[in-house]
């Protein structure tokens, strides 16, 4: 296992190199000029040209790339073109809201989706199964911003139970932190509930037709024990894969939800950075997201060995 783990971690290096090259080139080759944005509408061509020199954008691309890679190897992701702050500190400020939102969303999604998906499989064709499948279709089809608006309208505007927007840092109190995360997490979890419930149902259905389930039932085990110990555990690998993908998606910033509920997370930071062509910030964010994706995939692969003893690396 250890050689495998080391191999996988080392494999991150070429991945990051490729990602760095792609993101560097994409930013420079797509239209838009950070200097023009920063200088403002009334800036002259001369002012903008001076600013481009200051920002290092007038250097030939290979030189810019060499500087970028050199700084990257030293762990220096640079300063935001706009805020004159270290990109790492800006990302650091945005991680907590996104992580909190991801955590809440995934917990809500798992707590609801896994039991209902399992029950839907167990009661295949019943009204419960139809409701779960119907919800899945709706959950996939309705955009998250619509769900967000509806939740805000009902629970904030009409019932006044929750604030319309805003995030509170965990350091300012756990109650306020949790309270402000409920609505955005609910809105965001709908699609993941749909996804995970559907995957759970399919996986459990497959397992329920296996011989060992029949044997377990024949042994006289209770339905709950059959479902939890024999069916769900054996169906867990694809479910965990989907949950892992969901976490990776959530960690890479959920732009629409963060925008509707005004959560200053990685999604908002990414959106702002892309809109403003803030190259250092976009580059650092994309590299961070790549690391997150790779690490979550690795974690899931390792988790497989716990869930299915037949899997060995």
């Amino acid at each position: 296992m250890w050689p495998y783990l080391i191999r996988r971690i080392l494999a991150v290096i070429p991945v990051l190199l490729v990602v760095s090259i792609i993101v560097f080139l994409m930013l420079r080759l797509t239209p838009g000029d950070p200097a023009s944005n920063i200088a403002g509408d009334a800036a002259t061509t001369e002012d903008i040209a001076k600013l481009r020199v200051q920002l290092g954008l007038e250097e030939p691309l290979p030189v810019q790339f060499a500087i970028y890679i050199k700084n990257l190897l030293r762990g220096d992701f640079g300063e935001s073109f706009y805020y004159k702050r270290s990109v790492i500190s800006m990302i650091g400020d945005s991680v907590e809201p996104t992580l909190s939102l991801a955590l809440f969303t995934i917990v809500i999604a798992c707590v609801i989706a896994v039991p209902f998906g399992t029950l839907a499989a167990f009661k295949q064709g019943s009204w419960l199964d139809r409701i779960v499948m119907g919800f899945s279709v709706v959950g996939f089809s309705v955009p998250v911003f619509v769900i967000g608006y509806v939740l805000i309208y009902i629970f904030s505007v009409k019932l006044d139970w929750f604030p319309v927007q805003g995030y509170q840092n965990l350091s300012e109190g756990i109650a306020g932190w949790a309270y402000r995360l409920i609505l955005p997490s609910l809105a965001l979890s709908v699609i993941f509930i749909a996804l995970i419930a559907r995957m759970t149902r399919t996986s459990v259905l497959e397992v329920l037709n296996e011989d060992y389930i029949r044997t377990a039932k024949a042994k006289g085990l209770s339905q709950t024990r059959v479902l939890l110990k024999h069916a769900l555990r054996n169906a867990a690998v694809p479910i965990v894969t989907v949950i892992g993908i969901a976490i990776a998606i959530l960690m890479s910033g959920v732009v629409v939800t963060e925008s509707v509920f005004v959560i200053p997370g990685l999604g908002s930071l990414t959106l702002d950075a892309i809109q403003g062509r803030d190259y250092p910030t976009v580059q650092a964010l994309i590299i961070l997201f790549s690391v997150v994706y790779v690490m979550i995939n690795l974690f899931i692969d390792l988790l497989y060995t716990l869930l299915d003893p037949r899997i060995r690396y």
Partner: protein
Amino acid sequence: MKLIKTALRKITLGVATSLLLMGTAQAESVLRVNMHSDLKIVDPIWTTAYMSRNYGYMVYDTLFSIDTSGTVQPQMVDTHTISEDGLTYDFTLREGLMFHDDQPVTSADVIASLKRWGAKDAMGQKMMTFVSEMSATGDNSFQIKLNEPTGLVLQALGKPSSNVPFIMPERIAATDPGEQITEYIGSGPFVFLEDEWKPGDKAEFAKFEGYVPRDEPGDGLAGGKVVNVDKVVWQVIRDQQTKMNALSKGEIDVIESPAHDLLPLMEEDENIQLVDLNPFGNQYTFRFNQLHPPFDNAKVRQALLYAFDQEEFLYAAIGDEKYFKLCKAMFICDTPIETEIGFEDKLQGNIEKAKELLKEAGYDGTPVLLMHPTDLAVLEPLPPVAKSIMEKIGMKVDMQAMDWQTLVGRRNKQETPAEGGWNAFITSWNSVDNASPLTTPFLNAACDKALFGWPCDEEIQSLRDEFSREPDSAAQLAIIEKIQQRVSEAPTHVHLGQWYQPHAMSVKVSGAPVSPVPVFWGYSKAE
């Protein structure tokens, strides 16, 4: 079970504590404002971005400011005299002016600040061509000597929009104008709370207890800047619907630029009031790129002056007549320099005349690359209107959709449209920027030194120069008429009418000053 009970008790206690804390925060009197954009750059001299200008008015003070009639009034200056020959200006600062680090404002700070501003700002650069010397005549008095008389000095020092001549401490103002400052100390009515600034989330300003307002009542940007709240928080909310809901529920107090399509809903909301604070509004402008055909031909440009109908543009973009105004005056309606001269028969959709001019110009069907920003609600509807009108008069139009930032990058490219350049786009200016021939950015016709579009017109330049030397307002108006006449023959841009952007505010908020720039003194908030 016991564990669950304990956890529930803790959560309840936490909620109660949070509510108590919320109560305390409200007692502090905090004005929560959603500005039109996030604050990104905290140096209002280094950039011309409006958000940096707005930030400047919070943190810094100005020597002079304009009132609601557009007249320049002293602000930091107590008294000033102009010598009979018009060559020497003497100024004395008000008593009690202090920076946020408790240091007094001195004439050395003023001179250093004016030098930095004069090196960066277009009007400042113009003013400095007349200045032979700036010197301190005492700790709180200074003198500006000119090499020839001009009416420009006070106008420039009271310039309301980017770049505004804000006064900074000498050590900060000594920063190269091409570099950003790194210390945020001013003598304005609010202190910037740097530690509370979270880019993309919020910027906070505390009332500066050491600020001494003028005795006169506030009037526009002039008069006493009396602060009635303890703190102002600029909160970033991107989603328009969320902004409205947050305002309605009292989570924020002011929206600087609510979307026009939500205004009817806000009008019906009993918790919201709509207040138009900028009497001059904004001006839409169609900009030509004169480097390339077909707009290198004055007759083609003039054809559009005849073809365009302000009403069509304003209905498409704004819709409600309450919020727009047809205005043929280049330098804004309702100002002392308002005149229609040159544009009497234009801007009202004369398609036949436009066709005639195109024919005379020998327009050969060269397609016009019209940039179409699709992500800004106030601009997005305009290019399709322009395209439709241009096609009606027989022009070919290649309208390319892009986001605003792409447009901003592309408009600085001087290459041909086929090589990544452009022919035309539409934008909007705060009207105060366009209220004088010297500040109107698109009127600068200094070829390579002009703004994107690069008009090259000696006559316009010489008239602007004449205007800057003319101290008499009647004579200035005569020059403006000549400028408009010239622009109507060889247009640098087309003004497509004025529009107004009301602020949306909580009904608990009052005292907002009428001003072309959003400022936050004067505001009171009822609990």
